[in-house]
């Protein structure tokens, strides 16, 4: 049973990898025991996140960059997250449409995931799936978030290099100065480089980046690409490697991994607390009654939370 699945996983069986990912996503009990096996096996892979607004070309860019990593003989895992409908719970996972050039390469494994209505651009299980690909032996793990605008920060908590993909239409320099997406970028990509305004927009981005204080010693480069015709991809690859070398030699990698560890523990605590609370006797009806009072402005959300927490002695 479980042992044989892990054995097959460790023997490099991709069906076993695929099934392990399914269990991590869906089966809370199996997940815990699987992770205790996978955790010690992971930590070797280079983790790269791609984020940015919908339609910026993230999938196509990843499809291209995977080929470059493969030319360097690196094995690659890709996790592509698309949104779940909060109304039906269903999802259309369409990133594979643009990720087909490695379909017959046994050293590339691509998995689509629904975000299960998480608001972070990732799903709760995404960090675990990265761990699985890493433990499976993938040397590079690439994560594509749901297309997001200004505030998705979680990706930076699970990857070592965050690539933010924009297009010339993404806005002017004032947009770029707003907090959020720009601040998590280790590398900025202006994709669809052949379109009008690419040069001005790239220059604006550089200016905004240079104005930033407390940047540390890494100034995020702005790379111009056209994922469609392939220009700039080698440059992007070189910048990713450069960033990783920087992370290694500056000690930043260790700091970031520590931060990731902390974020992982925080998530686990949240999850445990949520589980404990949902196990409270008549949780749903208590929640129903409290929600009603909060909606009627009879109770603050904080006071309602205290009532729920007191049920479990917190």
């Amino acid at each position: 049973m479980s042992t044989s699945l892990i054995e097959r996983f460790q023997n490099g069986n991709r069906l076993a990898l695929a099934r392990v990912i399914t269990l991590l996503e869906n089966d809370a009990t199996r997940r815990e025991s699987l992770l205790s096996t996978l955790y010690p096996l992971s930590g070797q892979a280079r983790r790269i996140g791609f984020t940015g607004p919908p339609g910026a070309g993230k999938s196509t860019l990843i499809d291209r960059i995977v080929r470059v990593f493969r030319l360097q003989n690196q094995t690659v895992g890709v996790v592509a997250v698309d949104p779940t409908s909060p109304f039906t719970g269903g999802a259309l996972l369409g990133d594979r449409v643009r990720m087909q050039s490695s379909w017959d390469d046994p050293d590339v494994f691509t998995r689509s995931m629904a975000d299960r209505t998480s608001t972070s651009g990732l799903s709760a299980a995404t960090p675990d799936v990265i761990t699985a690909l890493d433990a499976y032996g993938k040397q590079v793990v690439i994560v594509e978030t749901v297309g997001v605008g200004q505030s998705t920060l979680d990706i930076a908590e699970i990857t070592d290099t965050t690539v933010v993909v924009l297009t010339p239409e993404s806005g002017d320099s004032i947009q770029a100065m707003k907090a959020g997406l720009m601040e998590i970028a280790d590398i900025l990509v202006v994709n669809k480089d052949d379109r009008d305004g690419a040069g001005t927009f790239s220059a604006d981005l550089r200016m905004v980046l240079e104005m930033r204080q407390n940047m540390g010693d890494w100034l995020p480069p702005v790379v111009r690409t056209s994922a469609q015709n392939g220009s700039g991809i080698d440059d992007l690859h070189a910048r990713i490697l450069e960033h990783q070398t920087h992370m290694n030699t500056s000690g930043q990698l260790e700091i970031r991994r520590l931060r990731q560890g902390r974020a992982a523990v925080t998530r686990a605590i949240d999850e445990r607390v949520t589980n404990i609370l949902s196990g409270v006797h008549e949780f749903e009806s208590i929640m129903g009654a409290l929600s009603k009072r909060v909606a009627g402005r009879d109770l603050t959300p904080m006071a309602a939370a205290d009532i729920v927490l007191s049920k479990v002695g917190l």
Partner: protein
Amino acid sequence: MTQKIRVLVAKPGLDGHDRGAKVVASALRDAGMEVVYTGLRQTPEMIVEAAIQEDVDVVALSILSGAHMTIMPRVLELIRENDADHMLLTGGGIIPKSDMAKLEDLGVGKLFGPGTSTRDIIAYIQNEVTERRKLVDD
């Protein structure tokens, strides 16, 4: 465990008429399933490789080109070669009744012709996956 039904929707062959595949993909999504859509011009090898990596319960193919008697058996054969027999292979398109019967004899699931209600497809997939999951043990 409450596991979402995962379905791969693909369109093998060379014609570009993917409206049917998109309608079905949207309907399955709206029924709460996670639908991996791989798009046009897929070979049987591409379809089965994607199905394995995505660990789907169902492979749903749209075939309008008349190549169903070649493509369906080949996809089924690849599914079996890869020890992925738990996957349901189903689909639809312009497929004569007599061919549907032949394919079902080979082990392909129910096939749906023009005019089918998406509700029937959803119900069929939900029932079939529930049954199959009882048998899978990993």
